[in-house]
């Protein structure tokens, strides 16, 4: 007699193992962050900021179809909001990250209302125009604390913020932000919202027909992405101090590498952008430092970056993590998938059958 005991499986042995390893990795980075090697802390901050940015861009592009070339708008808004709170209102620089992120969130409301009138490629360029508008407006604001196009510096008097202390704190904040951002993405995709998003991505009309409010789900995710993108921009400048509109709102410094990281890692997966960001960062760090064996000039490095984006988008759309998942179907760090395990008998067979 066959007993049928169906249940939905989410976490798997692999996901528990890999999740544990990821937690260990974070713990190791936290230990490094509290050390006193400034270059290591700089690397942690840069890498974590790009993990956040890539995860958020992927949440938009990979799950809602909102492919934006204008996310630098939120990096810049977060950065300048930080400057306004810290320099203009003499707030604690670390605390100022929080209102900076909220300002990015608030700014995202009118931006979404406008940009959501465009679709696909036109949405992408429309976001770019909006980022340009913000950049030009910031450049026109020549008074304190923004100081127009020539830029300004975050006030970090050594008496209040000793350098060692600032590097440690910033590295820890960046690491925490990355952990929270990736967890939010994973939890969001596990939730009802995540199911709706994936339904919209796979068949927009079908999902709408089943009662998914496509506009509302997209709007919600756009807000989340703006919040974290703004926070990431602010954290970056806790370390870099020097702020200029042309760099804070630069498409080449922010959105271009983000796009490349996400497609290399695997668009539409939670793990892909994280792996893409870390990998891209390590490779860039190596090939652009002058004492490496394989050294590229800026132009060659960017030419290769563009070529990789082009080739991956044309021939390897699943990216690294996607390719790995094709090879090993049960591979996942974050248990966001649902597998229906049908009865005991089938449950055994299901072990090597991949995702249901």
């Amino acid at each position, binding site marked *: 007699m066959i007993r049928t005991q169906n249940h939905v499986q989410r976490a798997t042995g692999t996901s528990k193992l890999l999740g544990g390893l990821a937690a260990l990795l974070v713990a190791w980075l936290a230990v490094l962050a509290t050390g006193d090697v400034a270059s290591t802390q700089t690397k942690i901050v840069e890498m974590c900021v790009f993990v956040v940015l890539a995860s958020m861009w992927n949440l938009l*592009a*990979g799950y809602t*179809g909102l*492919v934006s*070339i204008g996310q630098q708008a939120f990096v810049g808004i977060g950065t300048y909001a930080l400057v306004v709170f810290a320099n203009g209102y003499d707030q604690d620089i670390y605390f100022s990250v929080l209102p900076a992120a909220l300002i990015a969130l608030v700014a995202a409301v009118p931006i979404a*209302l*406008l940009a959501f*009138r*465009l*679709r*696909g*490629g*036109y949405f*992408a*360029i*429309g976001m*770019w*125009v*909006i980022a*340009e*508008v913000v950049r*030009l*407006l910031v*450049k*026109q604001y020549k008074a304190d604390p923004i100081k127009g196009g020539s830029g300004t510096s975050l006030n970090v008097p050594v008496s209040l913020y000793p350098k060692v202390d600032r590097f440690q704190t910033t590295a820890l904040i960046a690491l925490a932000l990355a952990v929270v951002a990736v967890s939010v993405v994973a939890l969001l995709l596990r939730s009802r919202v995540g199911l709706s998003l994936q339904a919209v991505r796979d068949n927009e009309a079908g999902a709408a027909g089943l009662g998914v409010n496509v506009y509302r789900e997209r709007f919600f995710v756009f807000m989340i992405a703006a919040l974290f993108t703004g926070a990431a921009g602010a954290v970056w400048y806790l370390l870099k101090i020097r702020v200029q509109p042309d760099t804070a709102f630069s*498409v*080449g410094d922010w959105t*271009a590498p983000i*796009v*490349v990281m996400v*497609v290399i890692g695997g*668009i539409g997966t939670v793990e892909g952008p994280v792996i893409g960001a870390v990998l891209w960062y390590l490779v860039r760090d190596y090939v652009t430092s002058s004492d490496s064996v394989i050294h590229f000039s800026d*132009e*060659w490095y*960017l*030419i290769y*970056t*563009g*070529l*990789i*984006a*082009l*080739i*991956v*988008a*044309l*021939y390897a*759309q699943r990216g690294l993590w996607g390719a790995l998942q094709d090879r090993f179907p049960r591979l996942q760090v974050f248990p966001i998938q649902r597998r229906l395990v049908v009865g005991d008998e089938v449950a055994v067979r299901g072990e090597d059958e991949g995702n249901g």
Partner: protein
Amino acid sequence: MNWLNAVVAGVLVGGLYALYATGLSVSFGVMRLVNLAHGDLAVMAAFLSSTLVLSAGGSPFWTILVLLPVGFLVGLALQRVVFDRLVGVDPAFQIVATFGLSIVIQNALLRVYSADRRALDVGKLKVDSVSIGDLSIGVFPLLRFLVAVAVLVSLSLFLGRTKLGRAFRATSDDPVAARLMGINNRTIYMVATGIAVSTVFLAGVFNGAQTNFATSDGPGLLIFAFEAVIIGGLGSLWGTLAGGIVLGLAQTLGAEQFTDWPSQLFGHVLFLVVLAVRPNGLFGRVEA
């Protein structure tokens, strides 16, 4: 400059924007493809023209005769190697691929030509103007405008009156049905991209003769082209011309009124206003 002159200048520069936008409009109309490297192709044409002039002498105008067919061939190749794989796929990959292409073109140009700005010398033509009372009209901007209108008229006749043009419109409306009727979509796509690249090459040379240019100018030109398309409304070539003119007017009139603000900001703001008030553009028939 008085107001009337600013209006004329705005209309004339609008013709150039329409010429930039034509290729974008054709690619989207036929393939639903947005090429983010569109502006970089224009910059590439300006540099190629300057190389030709430096090596063979003469005025930049003769280089147009070379660059138009070259642009068409570049378009065919681009379609075969890159765009064919992007038609009908998730827009994310179209954007990533053409964005990558844009980065490659920009930095390859930077590698070859360095970051110095260049200009195409058209001699006296650049500064000549005809005066009617207070009004003075630059000869070169006028010529540029007329060329843009001529291109749009010929393209419109081609789409409306020829057999191939009919096949274009059929493919745009329903690619599957068009294929069933014996139209080879891949040929149509190749011709479309050929036209898109040769028109943007033409625009690039005319722009390079008017102002100096650098390897990093492409994205800015892409944005102007895009704004002209959206302001005018998708799916209409005449809408694109009108969109270019309205964009040009916004920039010159804005700069006339607020002299210490960047002129492109007024174009951006107009674009956002149109998006808020008339999201299908001023003359559009297709939803963006």
